[in-house]
Every structure is written in C-alpha cells, then in structure tokens.
C-alpha cells in the first residue's frame, strides 16, 4: 500500500507545508512531524508528510550492502 512521494519542503505555515516535487507544488499536512523546516525533505502520502527523510535520494543502500553483504 501507500504510494509515497519524496519532496522538498518550501514553506511552512501553521501545521501545513508546501512541498515541491520536480516543480509540482501542493499544500500538505505537516501535523505528523515536529519542527519541519523549509529545505527539509519529506515522504508524502495522501496529502500528509509521514516522515522526514535524510535525503531525496536512495544512496544509503550502499551502506546497507556494505554492512550486510560484504
């Protein structure tokens, strides 16, 4: 379940955030995440930011590979 979209926070305002994904912007709820700031990356689902993420990218898989598979 749960199509997720990683996007950058460009504005914060009273429980809501405006996010930007490749230039597509939308207001979403920021109520599930404390102290979000412009510039943060979040995972968005159904109009709600469900997690703050370290990066838009998935490069951390390399560390995982190193840890478990080498």
């Amino acid at each position, binding site marked *: 379940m*749960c199509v997720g979209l990683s996007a950058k926070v460009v504005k914060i305002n009273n429980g809501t955030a405006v996010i930007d994904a490749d230039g*597509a912007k939308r*207001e979403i709820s920021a109520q599930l995440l404390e102290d979000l700031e412009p510039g943060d990356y979040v995972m968005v689902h*159904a109009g709600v930011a469900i997690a703050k993420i370290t990066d838009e990218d998935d490069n951390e898989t390399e560390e995982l590979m190193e840890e478990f598979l080498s």
Partner: protein
Amino acid sequence: MENKTVTMAHGAGGKQTSELIDEVFKAHFANDDLTADDAAVLVPPAGRMAVSTDGFIVSPAFFPGGNIGKLSICGTVNDLACMGAKPLYLTCAFVIEEGYPMEKLEEIATAMEKTAKEAGVHIVSGDTKVAGKGQVDGVFITTTGMGQIEEGVTVGGELAKPGDAIIVTGDIGRHGCTILLEREDFGIDADVTSDCAPLWNTVKAVMDTTHDLHVIRDATRGGVGTVLYEIAGQSNVGIRLNAEAVPVQPEVKGVCGMLGLEPLYLACEGRLVIMASKKEAEAIVETLKKCPYSANAAIIGEVMEEEAGRVIMETEIGTQALLPQPGGELLPRIC
C-alpha cells in the same frame, strides 16, 4: 450582437441563428470556400483524399495553452497530417449550452481562425445547435477535415517494420496533465501548459527530409502508451521502449508522482509518434528540432520482430518489463 449569452432562439434556425453565424462565425472564418448554404461546393483534392472527424468535449473548455476551439482544429488537422495529407477543408459543428457567454464563443472562434490559418486549412461549412441548460456542458465542437494525400509517402499504423526507430516529437503528457489539473480540484500547482499545436507543417518538413517513413501517429487520447500498443497490434510487431529516453517535463513527472499516474498514458495534442528506418532517424530528429513544436524530439525505442503485440520497457536498471496495457479512465491512486 445584442445578446451577451447564447439563447435557445439562436438555435431555432431563424433570424437569430443567422445573426449568430454572421457575427461570430463568419466574421472569423471568412474565406473563398466558406458557404452560407447548407453545403459547400468545393474543388476536390487531386489524387487520394484523406477524411477525418473528431468530437471535442474537453472540460474545461479553456486551459493553459489553448481552448476547445484551437484543439478542435489541431485534432483534425493532425489526424490528416498523420495520413501524410495536407489539410485543405474543414467543417465545424457546434453544440452550445443555453446561456453560454457570447464573449467566450467569440474567443473560441478567434482561436479557430488563428489555428486554421496557421495550418493552411479553409473552414468551409458549419452548424450551430443550442441545447437547453444542463443538456450539454458548455460547448462541444465536432470538426471534419478533408486533405490531399501527398504522393510518394505511404504511412499507416499497420506499416511498422522490425528495426524501425521510434521517434517522439517532444516531451509527452502535457495536455493530459494540464487538463487534469484544471478539471479536478487536486490542489496541485504546477507550471504545465498544453502541448496543443497544429502539426501539418511539421509532418511536411519530415516528409521533405525522407520518404522512408512507415508510421506517423498523434498521441492523443490514451497518450503515447496507447498509440504504441495500437501500432504493435496493427503491425504485429513488438516495441522496445527506452524508459529513460522518453522526454517528460519535470513538472509533469512531479504531478504524476503525486497522483500515481504514468505519463505515457497522458494525452498529448501536439506530439507525434513516428516510425521510420533506423538510418533516417537522426536526420528526422534533426529536422524536427528545427520545427517550432518539436524542439525536444527524441528517439525513444525501436520496433522488433519478437514480442509481437507488446510494448517492452527497458528500465532504469537495465531489466526489461512489459508496459502495462492502457486501462480505461485515468484515476489518481494512493496505492
């Protein structure tokens, strides 16, 4: 015109119908071939004639990049162009909702005039019906085009050959994306405008570059994905698509990400899919890049003998996977 809105009387066939036709339509469409009678009398095209019809019911009728009037000319002109036919004559039939603002109708007619001029096509005959409030959503237009098929080039959905290169004339899905954002209240703000454009001049430029063309198709309803599946079926060939080579505007990608949609299934109204011998592909793309509506033309795949009837995607990890078949109504999804 005293009326600010279209009334039932404008559709009753009497004085006010003539008034509407004269003041809105004739004022814009005037040319030597346009008739006041119920039928136009025309010099038929030489050689073979291409004929195409399409109904336009786009909602909203006005959108970034165009309106239903522009669209109704582009759609039919492009269908003719895709047969290698120079558009000569066009008819247009309007169904208008009682109470429709005259000003908007005027704007639609203006767009039609401009687009028809650009495409070099004459509007030769029209029809106006007024439907009662609530019996039609604003305005619908049906255009029918007649063109002259240029000698020396034969194209058709059944003529794709293994080894052909597949070219798309620009970034895909902008029209569908634009309409979706305008129509539905998804709260998404993205700088996307329709790609709606008349493409006969583009096709002509390509035909002047090479006659070794097999398929030309405009990727309208159902988008590039649907067109590729159709051609794969008609020509009984497989199609291999390079996912990363397909040009998509970032904003369109972003919208599709949010709504769980596949850009390959979003409608275009100014994009062609061209299949031609691989050896001509570069020259075609070069020509296209010089045309006004195809600066982003790209080779996106090739035709193959295997996997007949199917479209195979080469993914970002180098694997191959079937492109899912187009599946009816476009619906945003969360899972």
